């Protein structure tokens, strides 16, 4: 075999590393978690909110609901903020100011999640407790912190989507006498919509999957929340809180929780990929 | 003319990009140490023909060719052809000057080093010789270690020519080498080609008919992937045999 072909084979093997990692991860998570789901039954596992590992009750409905609510809350805060930043940077900013603001905002992505969680505990939780009531550690606190944490994802993908809109659209609209804002909101945003939706979906994925910050501020109570001031436990925090000491069926149940999380994330990622491809 | 008296000989060469036929049954002989011109309008197949001559066409996905091309007595379209060696024998200068992001000296030494030349003295002589041949030596001899990216456009093109010459090729292919250059740089390149003719076989592609008329010994006119006319340059330019050649060189199209 000549050298060029040999190099190509080796590189091909290296290139398979990411997809094979993904496959192996999937296999191991499912292998560890599926027995419990078969044992308990998918319906009971997902629709029961009775989680008492020592007594053999494994229902994660409360956590699924909490994860969804926390994520939606994060979207309510993070999407408008992130989209606003993206529009300002892509449309209303001089080249120089953008060169300054974009890397600055990207710094948000570098701040570790434990730091977000820590500041949430120190500043946000007391604020909620003192002004809104409840224990402070709550669905609201988690949603606010996650809303901030997804900003870099929402901002950077939305900016890409906005800058991908050809300038002729803008020029055409301005030439028809539209103001800059009318142009953005009637022409540019619709043209960039699939990219912006991708940004929102990936932001959701980020929020659903976040663990450490949520553990620190959400309160981790095992019940279905009735108010945004109630403490909640998400799928991710459930895994992280109990994995350290779980064994046997209990550990399997945590991997099963992982399966549910994994499936949710993969659905979100897949729809984002498909959406991006359609464009 | 003796049938054996050719450097390159194309026999029924056709070339396809996917379904598009870029060369249609080309037959052509190029003699040793002549400047052979290829002219024709855009997309007529001139550049494709060059890229087949040193198998640069292999880089293009979906490319296919048929026929034979003899370089001396070796068929360079045969699967057994050592393309790396072929590209050293048949050097190509692209239309856009592309200096590699290294020093002037490193640009020139890349190919000789890969060919296995190690002797320091010999390599230095090679640098000087090829720069002189490309008429660039006087302008850069004091700054051989400067980045090649800092040269002017005309200097960069002559550097690319020198870089090709440093491989010590037998044939030099030039693809519109002066398309982006000012008249003074263009004159310098043409003068250089005239000097190089003593040692090399040169094929010059240009869509500037005046340049072809000035600089080449013989010329072929390509139109829509086919050769319309081949002949001695003065003859083709004074008494073209084909009406389309006449139309092209008198500027009625192209």
């Amino acid at each position, binding site marked *: 075999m000549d050298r*060029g072909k040999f190099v*190509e084979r080796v*590189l*091909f093997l*290296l*290139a*398979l*590393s*990411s*997809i094979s*990692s*993904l496959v*192996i*991860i999937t296999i*191991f*998570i499912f292998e560890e978690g599926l027995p419990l789901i078969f044992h308990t039954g998918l319906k009971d596992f997902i629709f029961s909110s009775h989680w008492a590992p020592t007594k053999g009750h494994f229902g994660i409905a409360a956590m699924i609901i909490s994860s969804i609510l926390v994520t939606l809350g994060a979207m309510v805060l993070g999407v*408008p*903020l992130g989209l*606003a*930043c993206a*529009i*300002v*940077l892509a449309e*209303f900013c001089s080249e120089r100011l953008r060169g300054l603001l974009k*890397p*600055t905002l990207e710094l*948000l992505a*570098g701040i*570790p*999640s*434990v*730091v*977000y969680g820590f500041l949430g505990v120190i500043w946000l939780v007391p604020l909620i407790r003192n002004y809104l009531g409840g224990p402070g550690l709550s669905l609201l606190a988690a949603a606010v912190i996650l809303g901030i944490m997804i900003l870099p994802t929402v901002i950077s993908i939305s900016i890409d989507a906005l800058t991908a809109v050809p300038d002729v659209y803008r020029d055409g609209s301005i030439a028809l006498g539209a*103001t800059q*804002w*009318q142009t953005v*909101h009637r022409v540019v945003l619709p043209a960039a919509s699939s990219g912006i939706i991708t940004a929102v979906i990936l932001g959701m*994925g980020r929020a659903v999957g976040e663990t*450490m910050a949520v553990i620190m501020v959400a309160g981790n109570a095992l019940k279905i929340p009735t108010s945004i001031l109630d403490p909640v436990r998400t799928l*991710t925090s459930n*895994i992280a809180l109990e994995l350290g000491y779980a064994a046997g069926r209990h550990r399997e149940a945590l991997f099963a929780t*992982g399966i549910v*999380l994994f499936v949710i994330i993969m659905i*979100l*990622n897949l729809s984002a*990929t498909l959406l991006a491809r359609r464009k | 003319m003796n049938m054996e008296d050719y450097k390159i000989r194309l026999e029924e060469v056709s070339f396809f990009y996917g379904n598009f036929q870029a060369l249609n049954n080309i037959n052509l002989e190029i003699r040793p140490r002549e400047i052979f011109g290829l002219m024709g309008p855009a997309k007529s197949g001139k550049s494709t023909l060059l890229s087949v001559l*040193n198998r*640069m066409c292999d*880089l293009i996905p979906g490319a296919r060719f048929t026929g034979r091309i003899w370089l001396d007595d070796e068929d360079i379209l045969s699967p057994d052809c050592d393309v*790396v*060696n072929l*590209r*050293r024998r048949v050097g190509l200068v*692209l239309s856009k000057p*592309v200096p590699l*992001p290294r020093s002037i000296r490193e640009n020139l030494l*890349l*190919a000789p080093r*890969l*060919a296995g030349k190690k002797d320091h003295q010999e390599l230095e002589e090679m640098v000087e010789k090829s720069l002189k041949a490309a008429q660039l030596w006087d302008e850069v001899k004091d700054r051989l270690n400067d980045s090649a990216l800092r040269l002017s456009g005309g200097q960069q093109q002559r550097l690319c020519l020198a870089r090709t010459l440093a491989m010590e090729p037998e044939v030099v292919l030039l693809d519109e080498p002066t398309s982006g250059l000012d008249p003074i740089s263009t004159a310098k390149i043409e003068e250089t080609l005239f000097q190089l003719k003593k040692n090399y076989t040169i094929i010059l592609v240009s869509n500037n008919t005046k340049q072809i008329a000035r600089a080449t010994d013989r010329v072929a006119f390509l139109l829509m992937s086919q050769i319309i006319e081949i002949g001695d340059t003065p003859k083709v330019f004074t008494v073209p045999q084909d009406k389309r050649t006449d139309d092209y060189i008198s500027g009625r199209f192209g």
Partner: protein
Amino acid sequence: MSRRLHPRVTQAIAKTLLWAFTGLTLLILLFIIVNISIKGLPQVTSSFLLQDPQDMGRHGGIFSTIVSTAYITLLAIILASPLGVGTAIYLTEYTREGWATRIIRFGAECLAGVPSIILGLFGFVLFVLKLGFGWSILSGGLTLAIMVLPIIIRTSEEAIKAVPQEYRQVCCSLGMSQWQTITRIVLPSALPGITTGIMLSVGRSLGETAVLLFTAGSALRMPTSLFDSGRTMAVHFYILAREGISMPNAYGTAAILMVSILLINLAAYTLMQRMMRRFS
């Protein structure tokens, strides 16, 4: 007819709101950085950096956690870099867009989306339990390598693609093989971008907690082998803060962590920008 605002008025309102939101985002960022720096940086003394933690981190410094962090990060980078750069070379230089590239890119994209807690679960069951590496530097480094792989692939691919296509033609015309072209011209030209990817991966590794809690463990001892458990700075900070062991030490650790990550990311960003400008 309904009452309508003049387009200019609408525009003024919209722009004010958008800028206000952007300002708010910047304020949040500023608040985080200033708060952690003001409370944390005064804690950072040479003895804080160079002493081992004592009494669960209540006293002493964070030296052993710095060492653990360095080992685990280094291991992850050493493992992930050849895989990531190799993938990028394959995707850009050796293959045309087709089913193979689609699968490889899809794998990298999905892997980038896998949350760290899932990676933690995976590393725990495969490396810690099945392969018997235990909670260790090795398990942590292996799992982190998978985590940063997509970052290295993406940035390296972008960097290699930014190298002008003409370079490859020129090298080919000079009789260079594809591999010679890659190693002598393409990779050196793309090096700043590849370095950027590696730096971003270091930044990501420094801040990671969920993965390491379940793969590298949280032993405070100085690790002496690949099979020793090691507590990284981020994990240390998490435990200090969550268990309320020592707020000053928590702030100090957070400050070092945050400042180093931000500096690394900023440097990485600048490097990539400079390289892109050079080739455009």
